[in-house]
C-alpha cells in the first residue's frame, strides 16, 4: 500500500524534475526521449575514416572530450543527487561509441583555422544523434569547428552516480547552429595583470559555453604588458614588472590554445586614449601624461593620450598596431577609440601647435589619425573594430565593414546600426561584469560603482539583441559579449566574477531565447545554468553559487512567485 503510493510520487517527481538535458547553451533544435542509457566502460570516440588526415587539434579535442566524460562526475541536481536515478539506470542499455564525420565534400581544416575565419564565414553547425538502443552515437558537421561544438554538447549530456555515467533522455536528436556569429568575452589585462594560466582556464570555460571570440583588451593607461617585436621598450618600461609581460611566445601559446577550442583571439590596442603608459618609453607621443588633477584629463587615473595630431605619433602608432596585428592570426583588430578626453588635447601645447600648423580641427586630425591606423592594420589583412564613440561622437571616416562595439548604453545600438555599421553588443547596462563592485577611486568613501547595480545573469539573459530594430538593421547585429574591466579584479577573483554569469550571453547569442517570453526563458534556464555551473566547477573553474544549494536542488522553488 504504502510502497505503491511512494512509487507514484517518485514517478511524478521524475517527470517534473528530469531536465530535457543539461546542455548550455540550449541547442536550437533538440528532441529527447525518456530512455536511460549508460556509458560503456570501453566507451570510445572515433573520427570517421572518411576524414583523411584529421588535424591534430581535432584529435586533441576528442581526447579532451573523453577526459571530461570520464572525470566530470556530475551528480544530477535533485534532492538526493545521483542516487535518485539509481533505479532508472539499472539495466539500461550501454552506449559504447561516438563517431565523428564530416559531410560529403567538406574541407578538412584544423579547428583553429576554421575558428579564425571572419565571423560570418565560420561554420559551427552540427548534428548529434544518440539512439536509445545503445547503438553508436554520431556527430556530423560541415567543418571540424562544427564537430568541436558537437563534442562540447555531447560531454554535457551525461550525469554520474556511484561509478556509472549515464543519461536519462535517449533517444537524442540535435540540430544546432548559433543564432549569432559573435559570442565573446572581453578581458582587460592592463589594470591588473593575469598570468597565461588564468587566460587558458578562461578560454577553457569559454569553450564549454561555445563562446568563440576572446576580446583581449591587452594594454591600457596603467600598464603595457604586451611585448611587441620592434617595440619591446613599451613593455620593458610599461609593464608592471618583468614577470607581468606577455611575450610573443605567450601570445602564440594563448592564440593556439584558444584556436584549438574554437575561439578566435581579437586583440585590442586602445587608441588614442587609454595610452598613458606609452609615455614611459615614448614621452614624446603622449599628451598630458599623468597630468593632475586626473579627473580633468581622463575618466580614471592616470591621464595621458596619444598625440594624435602629430605625424610622428601617427606613424609610430600605425607601426605599432601593424606589428601587434601580425602577432594575431585573427581577421579582426580593435583600435579602440573610447573615452577620448578633449581637455587633454586643448591643454597640450604640442597638439595645439600641430593643429595650428596644419590648420586642421581636432576632429579632422582624429580622422587623419584613424584613417592612418586603420590603413596600417588593413595592410596586414585585418578588419578594424572600434568602440561606439568613433561612430557616434566623432566625425571619423570608417570603412563600411568596420565592426562597432556598443558599450555606453544599449540605448545607443539603434544609432549605430542606423549608420549602417555591423554591431557587437557589449553594453554596460547588461554585460559589464565589473559593475556593482563599489567605487575604487581612493579617498571617496561614498563612491559607488559608476555602472551600478551588479548585472546578474538574469539581467543579461533578458537582453533583446534586436529591440527597436528594423529587420534590415537586425541583420547588422553580429552578436555580443560580456566584459571584465579589471580595476578591481585579478587572478584572485577572475573565476567568481566571470562565471557562471558570462554563460548568460553565450546562450543569449547562441540560442536566441528572447525570441519567446523572457521571464519564462529565465525561469527555465536556471536549472540548466545551475547544472552547467556545477559541471564547470567539476572541471576546475571556480564558478560561484547563484543561490543556496537548497534552491539548486529544487528547480523553481526559489522563484519570485513560488
Amino acid at each position, binding site marked *: 500500500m504504502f510502497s505503491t503510493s511512494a512509487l507514484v510520487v517518485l514517478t511524478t517527481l521524475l517527470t517534473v524534475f528530469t531536465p530535457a538535458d543539461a546542455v548550455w547553451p540550449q541547442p536550437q533544435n533538440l528532441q529527447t526521449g525518456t530512455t536511460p542509457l549508460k556509458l560503456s566502460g570501453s566507451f570510445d570516440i572515433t573520427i570517421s575514416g572518411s576524414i583523411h588526415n584529421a588535424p591534430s587539434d581535432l584529435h586533441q579535442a576528442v581526447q579532451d572530450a573523453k577526459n571530461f566524460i570520464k572525470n566530470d562526475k556530475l551528480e544530477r541536481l535533485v534532492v538526493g543527487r545521483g542516487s535518485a536515478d539509481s533505479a532508472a539506470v539499472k539495466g539500461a542499455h550501454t552506449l559504447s561509441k561516438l563517431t565523428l564525420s564530416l559531410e560529403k565534400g567538406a574541407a578538412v581544416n584544423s579547428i583553429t583555422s576554421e575558428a579564425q575565419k571572419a565571423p560570418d564565414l565560420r561554420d559551427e553547425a552540427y548534428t548529434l544523434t544518440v539512439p536509445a538502443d545503445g547503438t553508436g552515437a554520431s556527430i556530423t558537421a560541415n567543418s571540424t569547428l562544427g564537430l568541436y561544438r558537437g563534442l562540447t554538447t555531447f560531454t554535457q549530456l551525461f550525469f554520474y552516480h556511484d561509478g556509472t555515467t549515464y543519461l536519462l533522455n535517449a533517444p537524442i536528436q540535435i540540430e544546432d547552429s548559433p543564432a549569432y556569429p559573435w559570442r565573446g568575452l572581453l578581458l582587460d589585462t592592463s589594470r591588473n595583470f593575469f598570468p597565461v594560466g588564468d587566460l587558458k582556464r578562461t578560454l577553457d570555460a569559454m569553450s564549454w559555453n561555445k563562446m568563440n571570440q576572446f576580446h583581449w583588451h591587452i594594454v591600457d593607461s*596603467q600598464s603595457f604588458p604586451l611585448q611587441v617585436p620592434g617595440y619591446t621598450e613599451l613593455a620593458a618600461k610599461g609593464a608592471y614588472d618583468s614577470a607581468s609581460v606577455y611575450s610573443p611566445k605567450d601570445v602564440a601559446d594563448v592564440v593556439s590554445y584558444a584556436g584549438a577550442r574554437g575561439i578566435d583571439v581579437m586583440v585590442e590596442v586602445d587608441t588614442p586614449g587609454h595610452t598613458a603608459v606609452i609615455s614611459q618609453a615614448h614621452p614624446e607621443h603622449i599628451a598630458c601624461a599623468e597630468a593632475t588633477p586626473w*579627473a580633468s584629463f581622463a575618466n580614471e587615473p592616470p591621464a595621458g593620450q596619444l598625440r594624435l595630431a602629430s605625424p610622428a605619433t601617427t606613424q609610430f602608432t600605425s607601426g605599432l598596431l601593424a606589428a601587434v596585428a601580425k602577432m594575431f592570426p585573427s581577421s579582426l583588430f580593435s583600435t579602440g577609440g573610447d573615452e577620448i578626453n578633449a581637455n587633454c588635447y586643448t591643454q597640450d601645447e604640442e597638439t595645439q601647435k600641430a593643429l595650428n600648423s596644419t590648420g586642421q580641427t581636432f576632429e579632422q586630425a582624429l580622422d587623419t589619425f584613424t584613417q592612418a591606423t586603420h590603413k596600417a592594420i588593413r595592410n596586414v589583412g585585418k578588419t578594424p573594430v572600434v568602440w561606439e564613440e568613433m561612430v557616434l561622437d566623432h566625425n571619423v571616416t570608417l570603412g563600411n565593414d568596420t565592426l562597432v562595439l556598443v558599450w555606453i548604453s544599449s540605448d545607443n545600438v539603434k544609432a549605430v546600426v542606423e549608420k549602417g555599421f555591423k554591431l557587437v553588443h557589449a553594453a554596460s547596462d547588461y554585460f559589464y561584469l565589473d559593475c556593482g563592485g563599489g567605487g575604487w577611486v*581612493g579617498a571617496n568613501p561614498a563612491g559607488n560603482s559608476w555602472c551600478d547595480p551588479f548585472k546578474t545573469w538574469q539581467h543579461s539573459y533578458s537582453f533583446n539583441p534586436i529591440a527597436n530594430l528594423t529587420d534590415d538593421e537586425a541583420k547588422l547585429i553580429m552578436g555580443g559579449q560580456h566584459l571584465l574591466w579589471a580595476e578591481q579584479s585579478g587572478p*584572485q577573483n577572475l573565476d567568481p566574477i566571470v562565471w557562471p554569469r558570462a554563460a548568460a550571453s553565450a546562450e543569449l547569442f547562441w540560442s536566441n531565447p528572447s525570441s519567446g517570453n*523572457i521571464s519564462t526563458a529565465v525561469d527555465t534556464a536556471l536549472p540548466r545554468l545551475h547544472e552547467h555551473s556545477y559541471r564547470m566547477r567539476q572541471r576546475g573553474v571556480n564558478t560561484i553559487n547563484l543561490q543556496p544549494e537548497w534552491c539548486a536542488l529544487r528547480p523553481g522553488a526559489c522563484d519570485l*512567485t513560488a
Partner: protein
Amino acid sequence: MARSRIWQYFVLSVYAAISIPGILCLWPMPRSLKAGTTSLVLSTSFSIDLQVQDAPEDLQQAITRTQSYLRNDNLGRLVVGRGTSDLGLLQGAKELQSLRVTLSNEAGKARSISSEATAPLGSRSEEYSLVIPSAGSTATLIANSTLGLFRGLTTFEQLWYTAGEATYTLEAPIRIIDSPAFPYRGLMLDTARNFFPVSDIKRTLDAMSWAKINQFHWHVTDSQSFPLEILGFTEVAAKGAYSNSIYSPEDVKDIVSYAGARGIDVVVEIDTPGHTASIHESHPEHIACYDSSPWMTFTNEPMAGQLRFASAATTNFTAGLIEATARMFPSSLFSTGGDEVNLPCYQLDVETQRILNATGQTLQQKLEMFVQTLHGGLKGLGKTPIVWEDLILTHNVTVSNDTIVMVWSSSSAAEGIAAKNLQIVHAPSDYFYLDCGAGEWIGADPDGNSWCDPFKTWQRAYIFDPYENLTESHQHLVLGGEQVLWSEQSGPQNLDSIIWPRAAASAEVFWTGPTLPDGTPRNVQSALPRLYDLRFRMVQRGVDAIPLQPLWCALRPGACDLMDAVKVPSPHDR
C-alpha cells in the same frame, strides 16, 4: 646638464622624505606608535627568544608561524620599483639578531592563547608592547598574557619588507604600545545557505588573525541546511544537511582549537525561532508553515518554516538542542538569533493557534517564554546570550541585562538598543554586509536587485562611527562590531575574494578607534596604502584577497584619490 642633476637631487630628497611618512605597513594601526627613519635589516640568523616558562604549545606554534611568515612573506614594498630603490639605504644598516618575548607578570603558569582568547569578553588582555631599537640590539615584546604576545607577534610580522636578499624596515627605532579600542572585533560566516569545508574556515581564521579579529561568529545553520552534527541530536544534521556537508563534533573541535590558537573565540549561532525550516526534515512536529507557498508570505527568503515556539514540546526540544550545541563550544558567548520572525506563519499555523487558545497567552508572551527558556539554559552553562535586534526592537522581548544585541537592519537601530541599556555589537547591513550589491538571487526576477544594494566598499565600512547616534552615557554599551557574509551567493569559490581585504576595514575601526597614534583622525586616505600592504601580504600567504585598484594605484599612494589631494611624487613622475 648640471641644472638638471641638481633638480633630480632635489626631487629625490623630497620623495624620500614624503614617501616614508611613518609606518605604512601595520594593520590595524597600533594605538600608540613611535617610529624613526633608520634602516634595519633582519639578520639571516634572526631568532625569537621565548622567555616564558613552560610556554604553552599554541604560543610556541605561533612563534614558529611568525618565523615562517618572516621567511616567506617576501613582500616588496608597494612603490614603483617594489623596493629595489631601498637597497642603497640598506648598505651598512644594522642587523636585528633577535626578538625577546616575555610576559610582564610571571606569576603562575602561563595560560594558552586559546584559553585567553575564549575568556569572557571583558576579561581578555590583548595588550602588548613592542620595542625595536635601531642599533641592532635585541627587540622586545612584552605582554600581560599569551594572547597579548600573539597580537604583538602579528604586528612584528607586518613590519618587514623584502628587497633582493634583505628583509628590512626603514623605520627603526620602533616603539609600540598597543591594545584594542573595543573588545569584540568579528567576522560572521553563514555556512547554511551554502556549505564551506573546514579548510575554508581555517583559511578564513588565519586571515582574521592577521587583522587581529578576535570573534568568529559562526551562523552555522539556517532554513536551507543544518550542517552541524550535535550529540544527542544527530538526526537533525543527518536529515537536514546538504549531502556530504556536515561539521562533525571532531570538525568543530578542530575549528575551535585552530581559532583559539590564533586568538579567536568562536561564537556559534543557532538561529531561532525563525531560520529553522531544515529542522523539519527530522522533526516535522516542531516546524510551523514548512515549505508553505507563496514563500514570500511566510519568510523573507525561501524556504518557509519556523520553530513552533508556542509548543512546550518544541521549546523543550530547542532548549535541549541549544544546550547540547553550547557544550561543543568553549566560548562564553552563544547566539540564539531571533531575527526575521514571521508572524503570518504562526497566524496560519493551526497547532500554534490551538495552543494560544488553550493557554490564553499571546504570541508575544509565548515568544518571550521561549527566549527566556533558551537563555536560562545557556546561563546554566555559564554562557552569555546574544540575539539579533529584532527580538528587542520588533518583538519587545524582555531579556536579561547582560544580553548582547547585534544590530543588523540599519546602523540607526543601535540607538533603540542603547535606550534599553543593552550591550551592542554593530553588524549593520548599511556598512558591514559583505554580500550586498551582488544582484538578485531569487529566480525568475531579471529586474531584481540586491536588497541591500549597493556594495559596501572597504571605504564605506571604514568610515563607520561606532558611536553614531549614541549619547555619551550609552557609548560604554558598544562592545565592537563585525562584517558579515550571508552566503546565498557565496561558496568556497568566492569566499576569499568577497571577504578580503574588505573585512579588515572593521578590524581597524574597532581595534584602532577614531584616532591614529599621532592624534589625527583615522581616514581612508592614509589607510589605503596600509590596507594594500595587508592585502598583498594576504595574497603572499595564500588568501585570494582582491585588488582594490589597478596595481598602478597601489604603487603610487594617493595618485588615484578622488581629488589627488595627497599626490606623492614618485620616481616615475620625473
